[in-house]
C-alpha cells in the first residue's frame, strides 16, 4: 500500500518556519558584519534601541546603517525568486528566469541611457522602469495569442519565449552600442548597473508593496499554477481559466522584475537558482515553492550582498558578480545530481 505521507500542511509549516528563521538570521548576520563588527552580546540592546527609534550606541547606529541595505537586498532577492517561479510556471520550463523575456534588458537600455546623459539617480530608476514597461508592452502585443487559453498549440507559449529572446538580444545590442560610445568616466557606473549593485540602492516602500501584492496573487493561484504546470492548455478541463492565469503570471512576474531591476540593476542567477534549489529540496508543489522561494531568495541575496561589501573591504564588489560566482557552480552541481 501507500507509504504514510506526513500531512502536507505540517511539512509546509516546518519548511516555511525554518526558512523564516533563516531569513531573520541572514538579516542579523548582515547587520553584524562589516568593517566594524557588532558582537552577539551587543545585539539585544542595540535592537531594543532601534525599535525605540533612538539608536544611541555605536552598535545600534551600525545596525541602522546596514539594515536599510540588507532589507533592500531581501526584497530584491525575494522579488526575483518569485518572478522566476512564476516565469517557469508560465513557460512550463524550469530553465526560464525573470530575465529570459528581455524585461531586464529593456530596463538596462533605459537606465544606461539615463546614466549616459548624466541624469540624477531617481531619473535613472524611472528610465529603467520605463524600459521594462516598454518591453513588456511589446511582448504582450506580439505574443497575445499565447496568453489565451485553449487555442495555442500543445506546448504553447513558444511565441512568447521566442519573442522575448529576440527582444532581449535587440536590447543588448543597444546596450553594447551605448557602452562603446560612453566616455571613460561614466563606464564604471554603467557596468555596475548592469551587473547589479546594491550599494546605492535606497530603502523604499514600493518594492515591499509590490512583493506583498505579488505574493498574495501567487499564493491564491498556487494550486492553479500546479495544474497549469502539469497539463498546459488541458488545465482548462480541470476548471482553470488558462488565459487569465497566463496573463496574470506574465504581468505580475514582469512587475516584480521591473521593481527589482529598477532599484538594484540586473542581478543575475537569483531568479534561476533559487526556484531550482527550492524545487530540488522541497518539491515542485507551488503551495510550498512560492513562499519558500521568496524567503530563500531574500536570504540568499542578503548574504551575497554582505559578502560583496566585506570580502575585499573597503572595496565593494557588485553583488551580481557574487550571485553568479555562487550560483553557477551550485546550479551545475544540482544538474549533475539530478541526472544521476
Amino acid at each position: 500500500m501507500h507509504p504514510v505521507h506526513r500531512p502536507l500542511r505540517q511539512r509546509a509549516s516546518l519548511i516555511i518556519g525554518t526558512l523564516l528563521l533563516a531569513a531573520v538570521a541572514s538579516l542579523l548576520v548582515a547587520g553584524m558584519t562589516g568593517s566594524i563588527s557588532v558582537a552577539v552580546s551587543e545585539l539585544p540592546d542595540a535592537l531594543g534601541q532601534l525599535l525605540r527609534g533612538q539608536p544611541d550606541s555605536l552598535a545600534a547606529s551600525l545596525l541602522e546603517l546596514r539594515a536599510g541595505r540588507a532589507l533592500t537586498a531581501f526584497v530584491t532577492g525575494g522579488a526575483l525568486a518569485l518572478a522566476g517561479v512564476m516565469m517557469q510556471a508560465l513557460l512550463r520550463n524550469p530553465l526560464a528566469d525573470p530575465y529570459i523575456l528581455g524585461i531586464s534588458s529593456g530596463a538596462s537600455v533605459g537606465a544606461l541611457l539615463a546614466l549616459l546623459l548624466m541624469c540624477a539617480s531617481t531619473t535613472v530608476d524611472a528610465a529603467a522602469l520605463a524600459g521594462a514597461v516598454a518591453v513588456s508592452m511589446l511582448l504582450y502585443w506580439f505574443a497575445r495569442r499565447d496568453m489565451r487559453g485553449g487555442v495555442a498549440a500543445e506546448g504553447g507559449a513558444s511565441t512568447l519565449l521566442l519573442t522575448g529572446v529576440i527582444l532581449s538580444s535587440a536590447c543588448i545590442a543597444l546596450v553594447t552600442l551605448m557602452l562603446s560610445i560612453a566616455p571613460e568616466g561614466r563606464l564604471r557606473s554603467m557596468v555596475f548597473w548592469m551587473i547589479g549593485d546594491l550599494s546605492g540602492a535606497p530603502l523604499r516602500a514600493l518594492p515591499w508593496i509590490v512583493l506583498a501584492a505579488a505574493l498574495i496573487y501567487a499564493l491564491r493561484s498556487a494550486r492553479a499554477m500546479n495544474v497549469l504546470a502539469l497539463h498546459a492548455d488541458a488545465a482548462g478541463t480541470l476548471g482553470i481559466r488558462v488565459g487569465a492565469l497566463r496573463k496574470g503570471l506574465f504581468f505580475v512576474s514582469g512587475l516584480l522584475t521591473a521593481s527589482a531591476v529598477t532599484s538594484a540593476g540586473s542581478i543575475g542567477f537569483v531568479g534561476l537558482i533559487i526556484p531550482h534549489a527550492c524545487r530540488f529540496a522541497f518539491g515542485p508543489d507551488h503551495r510550498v515553492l512560492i513562499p519558500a522561494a521568496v524567503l530563500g531568495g531574500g536570504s540568499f541575496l542578503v548574504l551575497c550582498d554582505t559578502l560583496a561589501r566585506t570580502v575585499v573591504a573597503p572595496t565593494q564588489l557588485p553583488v551580481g558578480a557574487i550571485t553568479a560566482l555562487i550560483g553557477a557552480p551550485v546550479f551545475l552541481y544540482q544538474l549533475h545530481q539530478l541526472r544521476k
Partner: protein
Amino acid sequence: MSIQTRQLELRAGERTLVQGLDWRVADGECWSIIGRNGAGKSTLMRTLAGLRAPEAGSVDLDGRPLAGWPLEDLARRRAYLAQSRHDAFAYSVLETVLAARHPYHARRYWEGSDDHAAAAQALDAMEVGHLGARDVRTLSGGERQRVAIAALLAQDTPLLLLDEPANALDLAHQVQVMGLLARLCREQGKTVVMIGHDLTLAHGISTHALLLKGDGRWHAGPVLEAMQAPLLSDYLGHPIETIEHGGRRIFIPLDAHHDRHA
C-alpha cells in the same frame, strides 16, 4: 451525461475534417471514434472538451451549450485525457493525481483526506498504487499513461473523453483499462467517448461507434451496424475482414498483396 452536436463543422487549415455532424451520445453509452490518422478524431475530442471552438455548429452537454457552462462545473462533469503529455517538472505520481481533484476544492489551499482517499483508490484501480512517491518523469510510457488515467478516475466525472487511452499500454493493461471503462458505463451509468485503433478491443466494449473519413463524411451508430467490415474498410482505407470466434468479433486487416477472394 449526454452530448448533442448540431451541424458541427471542424477544419484544420483549409481541410474540412468533419461536416454537418449531428450526433447524440446518451447517458451510459460507450462510444469509440474510429478513423485514419489526421481524420479529425483528436480535433473532435478537443472540441468536445472545450479546448477549441468548432468552425461551425454547436455542442451541447446535458442540453446546455458548451460555452454556457462555468468551467468549474464542467470540470466536475467532464474529464479529458490528452493524447500525449510533456512533464516539465518533477511532480510525484500522487501529486499528479491529487491535482485532478482541483475542481472539487478550488477555494481550499490543501487537499483533504477525501481527496487522498479518491486518489489512492484511483491509483489502485490502475495498479500504480506502489508508484505514489515516484517522480512522474522517471516512469515508463505505459506507467505514465496509467497514472494519467488514474488522474481521470480521481476527477470522478459522469463524462469521460479519452484520446487513445490504450496508448503505450501492454496487452494485459489494454484489456484491463478497456474492461474498466466498459464497467463504468454499464454499472455506474458513466458516458465514455474514446479514440482507439484496436478494432477488436473497441468492438468488445463499445456500445456505439463514430466513423470519421477525414473529408467531412461521418457515420454514427450502434457497433453492430457501424462496425461492419465493408463500412470500416471504406472509412479506414484498407480492406478488413471479420471472423466470429468464441462469441466475439475479430477484425483482421488484410495483407496489401493478399487477394480477398483467394
